[in-house]
């Protein structure tokens, strides 16, 4: 790889690829963005699938190589640039926690994705299952509670300070509050404010633009169908 690699991020706004957008800003790398629209299906075209074979974002081109999966890109960038300052290498004392957080971010994102599908992508709300929404909202709360407990009084996810584990949470903490209020998680809420105040985060958010994915501030769990109301309706 060259000293000043040519980097292109394949990006869907307000999605997991924000993790990489933010990390690239933290690393101070030059890059350009190829924008994709998740609703238009342009990621299903053969040209894109040659780069990201499941047709997902993010994918990252570095010179003549392509890498996909946000966790893989995060690890690769962190161990390759800025002398590894944002990673924790094999055998480092925080290696376990570092790897754990990177994976845990994806555990949480998987639950968020199911909520996105049920609340946002299914246009006809009757196609969604209230039980599934309820279940996944509870699972999201569970992963947030796990994070709140592990975070403790630390400023960042790792005791030694900011790392690429934090940038993995960039998408999660943007999306989670649409489904679960963070009031019950004071440490998480403070952590969210802290990461959002970082200059690199702000630069990334400015490039990402104002979100239009969610059309309301909060998506509550649908209440039980009121049988009496149904009766009244005949």
């Amino acid at each position, binding site marked *: 790889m060259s000293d000043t690699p040519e980097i292109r991020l394949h990006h869907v706004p307000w999605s997991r690829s924000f993790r990489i957008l933010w990390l690239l800003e933290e690393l101070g790398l030059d890059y350009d963005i190829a924008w994709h629209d998740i609703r238009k299906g342009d990621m299903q075209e053969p040209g894109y699938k040659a780069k990201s*074979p*499941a047709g997902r974002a993010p994918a990252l081109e570095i010179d003549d190589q392509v890498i996909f999966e946000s966790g*893989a890109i995060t690890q*690769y960038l962190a161990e390759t640039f800025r002398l590894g300052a944002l990673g924790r290498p*094999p055998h480092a004392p925080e290696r*376990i926690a570092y790897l754990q957080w990177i994976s845990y971010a994806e555990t949480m994102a998987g639950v968020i994705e199911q909520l996105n599908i049920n609340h946002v992508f299914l246009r006809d709300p009757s196609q969604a*299952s209230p039980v*599934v929404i309820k279940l996944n909202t509870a699972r999201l709360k569970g992963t947030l509670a796990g994070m709140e407990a592990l975070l403790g009084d630390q400023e960042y996810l790792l005791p030694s300070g900011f790392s690429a584990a934090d940038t993995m949470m960039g998408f999660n903490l943007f999306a989670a509050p649409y489904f679960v209020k963070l009031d019950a998680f004071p440490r998480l809420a403070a952590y969210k404010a802290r990461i959002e105040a970082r200059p690199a985060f702000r630069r990334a958010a400015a490039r990402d633009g104002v979100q239009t994915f969610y059309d309301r501030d909060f998506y509550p769990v649908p209440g039980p169908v009121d049988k009496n109301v149904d009766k009244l309706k005949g």
Partner: protein
Amino acid sequence: MMRLHHVPQSRSMRILWLLNEIGAPFEVVSYPFDKTLRSAEFLTLSPAGRVPALEIEGERMFESGAIAEYLCERFPEAGLGRAPGSPDRMAWLTWLHFAETVTQHLAALTQQHLALREPAQRSPIVTQLEAARLGKCLAAIERRLSTPVENRDHLLTSGFSACDVAVGQAVYIARHFHRLDGFPELSAWYARITARPAFQASLPAPEARLYTRDFYPPLEETA
């Protein structure tokens, strides 16, 4: 000694297989797939109450992806990892993480078909959507194994690795929700890696199976 906290046919099977490949001594604690995983005691092992969790040399770990990477680094002689700087590093990271992308579809399908017992609670469209997305992941694996010049025997050009274990275990579960017909390279690869003794040793006893049916087709709209 290492101790794996395990639910048969769950993601912890990935770590069981990996440990069997490594060959260092370990013991297994098996759990039913139920509220036991939410007990205060289990939550000290895994904060979101999920398997796998691993105890290793006085440390406790959760997250199958993290555990897999850590074990590869701890036991380099097993040849399952690709260290930073090695030529296949990028691909190794990619395919290891990709196993989790596949598994998230499996988790959604398992939730629909197995966890929700009442048909009215299920969402047929979600089962259709998730089976289709799973199919795209299988197509991605097929594409990876079929290269223009020479087909790959394993996900990495440099040969068998933890990627085959992680993605292979995902495909083992995926067969319950998507047929492998139409993916000849994937099928040949799957046969190759599951013939390994370490995989065979990771299979559940018949009565411990989570998936009691061979195949769960997408649900039809009832309305």
